[in-house]
């Protein structure tokens, strides 16, 4: 019964989305005498839509937790022996459920807009919610027609097939929801942009309204990507933190576009400039999210984690993609020429700095897109099969990122309209010297000096010191009145410095050893010793495992015992490597079991020394925290009347 209720709730949600998507949009055009009522419909429709989807989602979760294997999706992704936490996470472990989560997030953002938009003009709210409703209609139709998670499987299976063992990790419980929160969240920025294009009111007030929503989505996406990277590091057993896998790229492209959007919204809000560009970025960020969904869900790309793919679904989602993005770009081409240019500015000014930031970020997103789609392109043209590997992305990415990172220290110092180059140079003098010293000396302290580690240390110290000095200057002239966005920006920039340190030191000084080990053998890595005490068997809830016992020591001091596992899951017969990691502030020691090599009990063992690797994720969390701080800024809660009288608003 529960699955039927869930299915029914999905159908009702589609009806609610139709109401939300059509009537308020027509109402906002003020062509009918019912306009006011239709506009007023937007909020309740959005909230009902959300509640219905929460109900549908709960029904699916219920089917999982009660092991209802008469539901095909449950039978494919769960198992009675699966621990309850993973049974719940399995709701979004497959194709159908992850789409349901996607559309649940979308309606959740819509409900949030409906609740937190008291200060906005009613017609604007109606249009924004309607655009979200329209996107939801497409996704719900996709679910109902091609990927219904509630489909029955009769007669029921006695036992489910189990969740893909790769996904049985605490990271998976939170990673997809965070990631979806983020990339679905760009739908709000998109909806604001489309609403503004429809109304022709593309002004500073519009930028102010969509800024907090964009930042919020960006915060979730940042956390989601960081968690995904952490999951890959823990679970895939290769010790890497980023693989340039198409699925990772699918989430990284919207992040790059979203980061550009956050910065360009700042110009549009403060100076009324680059309005067309900002709108285009808002469309691009969400389009890249949709494209990511398409790439992952249609299976056009081969990827290590192409979990579920089906061509008929691919066609549907491609059409959806074409309609949503195509119509918004058409609207853009029609409306954009009428939008004014905005405030003028000098060549050396904050506007220019942010413009360069935008160009670099867009080039970066474009190069990732090209690298991701290139194999597909070549295959489609019948030129053969090939793959674009990490070397491509690394060679392209580093030259684009270096100027961007250099600019982070400079940009916030520049004044709007016209900046004084000499003044900026004076304020950056000390940072400059510190950065040069760091580049020259720091790599020697860590090991060997290489150009890459020197460059990385230089950039990190350059950003960090300039950020600290700017905060100090501000505190000297009275930091009490500094806005939340001031602190948010600097915290996020500081996070980048931390991230750069992590990436540089892991890249430059990690040690990797694949060795043959027998009981009693010792391997040393990065000044630490690991001794294999024993490899024995151990049972698990839905698998049995070989567990290694390793003693980690340094200069004779025993620090910790590590237990890496090789699991064999019952239902899928899939072996899985569970690495054991000793996490430290300045380094991780990573041990994973390969396989038994001979009859004398020897195993192949992989041992890594990863200096400062946790700084990578720490840096991401600081960036996210910075975004969160910026959200708390008082000016986003000002009423609309106050907003339009601010000097920054230059109307279209």
């Amino acid at each position, binding site marked *: 019964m529960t699955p039927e209720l869930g299915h029914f709730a999905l159908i009702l949600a589609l009806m609610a989305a139709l109401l939300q998507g059509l009537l308020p949009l027509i109402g906002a055009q003020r062509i009918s005498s019912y306009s006011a009522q239709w506009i007023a419909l937007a909020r309740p429709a959005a909230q009902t839509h959300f509640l219905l989807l929460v109900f549908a989602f709960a029904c699916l979760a219920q089917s999982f937790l009660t092991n209802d294997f008469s539901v095909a999706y449950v039978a494919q992704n769960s198992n009675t022996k699966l621990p309850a936490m993973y049974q719940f996470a399995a709701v979004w472990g497959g194709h159908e459920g992850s789409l349901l989560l996607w559309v649940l997030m979308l309606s959740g953002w819509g409900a949030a807009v409906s609740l937190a938009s008291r200060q906005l003009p009613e017609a604007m709210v109606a249009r924004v919610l309607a655009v979200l409703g329209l996107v939801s209609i497409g996704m719900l139709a996709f679910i109902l027609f091609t990927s219904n998670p509630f489909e029955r499987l009769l007669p029921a299976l006695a036992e489910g097939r189990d969740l893909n063992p790769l996904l049985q990790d605490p990271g998976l419980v939170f990673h997809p929801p965070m990631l979806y929160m983020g990339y679905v969240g760009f739908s709000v920025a998109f909806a604001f942009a489309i609403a503004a294009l429809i109304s022709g009111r593309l002004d500073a007030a519009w930028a102010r309204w969509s800024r907090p929503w964009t930042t919020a989505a960006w915060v979730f996406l940042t956390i989601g990507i960081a968690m995904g990277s952490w999951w890959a590091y823990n679970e895939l057993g290769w010790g890497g933190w980023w693989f340039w896998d198409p699925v990772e790229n699918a989430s990284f492209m919207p992040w790059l576009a979203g980061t550009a959007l956050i910065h360009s919204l700042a110009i549009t809000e403060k100076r009324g400039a680059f309005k067309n560009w900002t709108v285009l970025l808002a469309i691009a960020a969400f389009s890249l999210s949709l494209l990511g969904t398409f790439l992952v869900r249609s*299976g056009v790309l081969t990827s290590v984690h192409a979990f579920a793919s089906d061509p008929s679904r691919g066609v549907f989602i491609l059409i959806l993609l074409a309609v949503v993005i195509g119509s918004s770009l058409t609207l*853009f081409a029609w409306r954009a020429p009428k939008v004014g240019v905005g405030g003028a500015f000098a060549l050396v000014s904050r506007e220019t700095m942010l413009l360069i930031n935008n160009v670099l970020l867009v080039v970066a997103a474009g190069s990732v897109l090209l690298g991701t789609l290139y194999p597909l392109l070549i295959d489609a043209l019948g030129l053969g099969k090939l793959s674009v590997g990490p070397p491509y992305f690394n060679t392209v990415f580093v030259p684009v990122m270096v100027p961007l990172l250099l600019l982070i220290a400079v940009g916030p110092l520049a004044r709007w309209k016209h900046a004084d180059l000499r003044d900026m140079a004076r304020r950056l003098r000390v940072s400059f010297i510190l950065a040069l010293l760091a580049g020259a000396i720091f790599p020697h302290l860590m090991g060997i000096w290489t150009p890459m580690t020197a460059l990385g240390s230089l950039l990190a110290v350059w950003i960090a010191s300039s950020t600290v000095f700017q905060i100090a200057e501000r505190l000297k002239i009275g930091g009490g009145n500094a806005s939340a966005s001031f602190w948010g920006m600097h915290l996020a920039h500081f996070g980048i410095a931390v991230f750069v340190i992590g990436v540089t030191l892991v890249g430059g000084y990690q040690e990797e050893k694949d060795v043959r080990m027998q009981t009693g053998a010792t391997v040393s890595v990065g000044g630490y010793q690991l001794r294999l005490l024993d490899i024995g068997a151990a049972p698990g809830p839905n698998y049995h495992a070989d567990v290694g016992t390793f003693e980690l020591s340094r200069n004779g001091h025993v620090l910790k015992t590590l237990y890496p596992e090789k699991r064999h899951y019952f239902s899928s017969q899939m072996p899985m490597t569970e690495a054991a990691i000793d996490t430290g502030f300045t380094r991780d020691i990573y041990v994973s079991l390969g396989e038994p090599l001979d009859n004398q009990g020897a195993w192949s063992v992989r041992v890594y020394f990863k200096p400062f690797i946790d700084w990578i994720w720490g840096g991401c969390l600081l960036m996210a925290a910075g975004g969160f701080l910026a959200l708390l800024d008082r000016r986003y809660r000002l009423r609309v009347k106050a907003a339009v009288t601010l000097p920054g608003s230059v109307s279209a």
Partner: protein
Amino acid sequence: MKRFLLPLAAFAVLVGFLAMGLMHDPREVPSPLIGKPAPAFTLPQLHDATKNFSVVDMKGRVWLLNVWASWCVSCREEHPVLVELAKTGSVPVIGLDYKDQVADGKQWLEKLGNPYILSVVDSDGRVGIDYGVYGVPETYVIDKQGIIRMKHTGPITPASLAQTILPLVKELSQ
């Protein structure tokens, strides 16, 4: 104002490529085995491991080779269709139990009904490789001379049975 149309144009090109990428779906690539003799094999039968079955045993008859497994969820979807087909007796179906345990396979057929005149066990999937099995279930239509005439990937639906498989069987039987 043409420059504002640029993003739209770039996007149209992208959609074109993505659509072409979808066309290149592996499921729609016709099997290279079509028109070729069905790869020979001799495997033990599921219900009587002492007896073997070979492709040549079916010479002179049009038959279906259906690849299934007890662990395969899509096979359950397909199974009722095969059971109905077996009742009509219009074409013999041989099952290839792919990478499965004998006990599981038997139990599965007991519970859901056995539409096969017999099933053979390909426990290590070796025969599956010869046939280029990509995903289970798959079905091959094999003619009187032992030539593969058609390959159906994924579960057979009543529609695909009525519209493509049975007409082909009828044509080949004449």
